[in-house]
Structures are given as structure tokens and as C-alpha cells.
């Protein structure tokens, strides 16, 4: 039978060990390295811990049909759905698929524009992760004349 003091001591020790191994989230902003190194759409979603994709008309992606310069491809993603948790931009055939993740709060619209690099012609995914666990996407093929990754 352990007394209160021993229990406290032990739990403090365990907490210290956990902290030293980095298992404790130091702040809510833990960069998800695995997700950003994933090689495919499925792997990236798995690393983020979200479920399977469903295509949806409520998610929109705006991107050029042909990008002359793969190092600057303007992408706009948006959804009108309520309860969006985060939105992702994924370029399927890049060395790492996941490009950007936007964590949406109630104070911003779920619509973002950014510019991304593309190594070659590929499908670009706009993904909306909803609070109820649904994962919706829209995709668009962008043809790249000059790749923007190697060199």
C-alpha cells in the first residue's frame, strides 16, 4: 500500500521522464514532422490522425491549369461549411505531399490563399477537416512546365 507522499513522488518522477523524452506537448504548437514528411496523401492523413477522404462540392480549390513556373504556384482553398477544424493543401507528386495546414478558428473564414512549389505536374488537393471527423476534399490537376523543387 502506497501512501500519498510516495504516489506524489513517483508521479513527479514519471512526469519528469516523460518531459525529458519529449512526450509532453510543450505547447499546443507541436510541429507534426511525420505528416510533413509523408510521401503520399494517405500517409499524410494517417500521420495527422484523420480519416478517409470524401470528395465534396463544398470544398473549392482555385489553381492555374498550367503553371509555367513550378516554384510559384498560387493556390486558393475555401469551404463554406461550418465547423471546420483545419484546412490542408496537398500536392500529390511533391517529395512531401503535405504543404500547408491552416488551423481554423471561429474568427477567420475557412478560405486561404498561398503560393506553393511544385516539382512536376500533379493533382493538388484542398482538404477540409471538420470537427465531426469528416474529411472532405476537392482536387485539381495543375500542369507544370518548369519544376520548382530540384535544380
Amino acid at each position, binding site marked *: 500500500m502506497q501512501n500519498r507522499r510516495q504516489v506524489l513522488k513517483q508521479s513527479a518522477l514519471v512526469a519528469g521522464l516523460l518531459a525529458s523524452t519529449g512526450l509532453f506537448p510543450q505547447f499546443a504548437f507541436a510541429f507534426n514532422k511525420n505528416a510533413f514528411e509523408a510521401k503520399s496523401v494517405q500517409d499524410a492523413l494517417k500521420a495527422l490522425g484523420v480519416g478517409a477522404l470524401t470528395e465534396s462540392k463544398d470544398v473549392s480549390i482555385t489553381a492555374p491549369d498550367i503553371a509555367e513556373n513550378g516554384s510559384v504556384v498560387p493556390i486558393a482553398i475555401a469551404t463554406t461549411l461550418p465547423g471546420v477544424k483545419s484546412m490542408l493543401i496537398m500536392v500529390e507528386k*511533391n517529395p512531401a505531399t503535405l504543404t*500547408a495546414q491552416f488551423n481554423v478558428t471561429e474568427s477567420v473564414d475557412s478560405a486561404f490563399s498561398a503560393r506553393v512549389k511544385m516539382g512536376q505536374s500533379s493533382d493538388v488537393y484542398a482538404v477540409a477537416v471538420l470537427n465531426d471527423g469528416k474529411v472532405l476534399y476537392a482536387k485539381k490537376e495543375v500542369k507544370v512546365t518548369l519544376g*520548382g523543387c530540384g535544380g
Partner: protein
Amino acid sequence: MADPMRIRAQAAGDKATVRVLMAHEMEGGQRKDASGNIVPAWYIQEVTATHNGKTVLTAEWGPAVSKNPFLQFVVKGAKAGDKIGVNWKDNRGDTRSDEATVS
């Protein structure tokens, strides 16, 4: 210290459109230099945007975001005179914060 960001925030109705241009190399870690060595990745990983001090958006980026990244988003309930702050942190631990006033 990195170069300042250019932030423009324009109110329209009860929303404000914020456009941010950050100055950053965003090296992807795929490129090789003249002697064939891979140039190590150097890119912005975390972006935070605030409206009058309250965090409204956080984003995580990979190395595939373009050099000198551009970001556009819409803040609800922002009006002229409000402060929009943007803060980034790259994978070397460098950070930069800038602020703009909604016009």
C-alpha cells in the same frame, strides 16, 4: 533578424482581408549547390496570426511553400483601426513578428 513582413489588412463590411508577404528563403532541402551538396532545408514551420492580441489563425507549413511566402486570410469581426499581428518561426528557430492596422 529576418527582413520585415509586409502586411496589409483591409476592412470590408464586418470582415477584413489580410494579405501577408513574408521575406524568407524557404529552402526546400531538395536543391543542390554548385559542388553537388544538398542545400539543407530552411523554411517557415509555424505561422500565427492575431487580431487585437487574440490568436485567430495558426498554420503549419512544409518546405513546399514558395520562397517569400504569400498568405491571404479573412478575419471576421475586424474593423478599421484594429491590430493584426503575424508571427512566424522557421526550422532554425528564427522568429519574426510584425503588426499592421486594419484600414
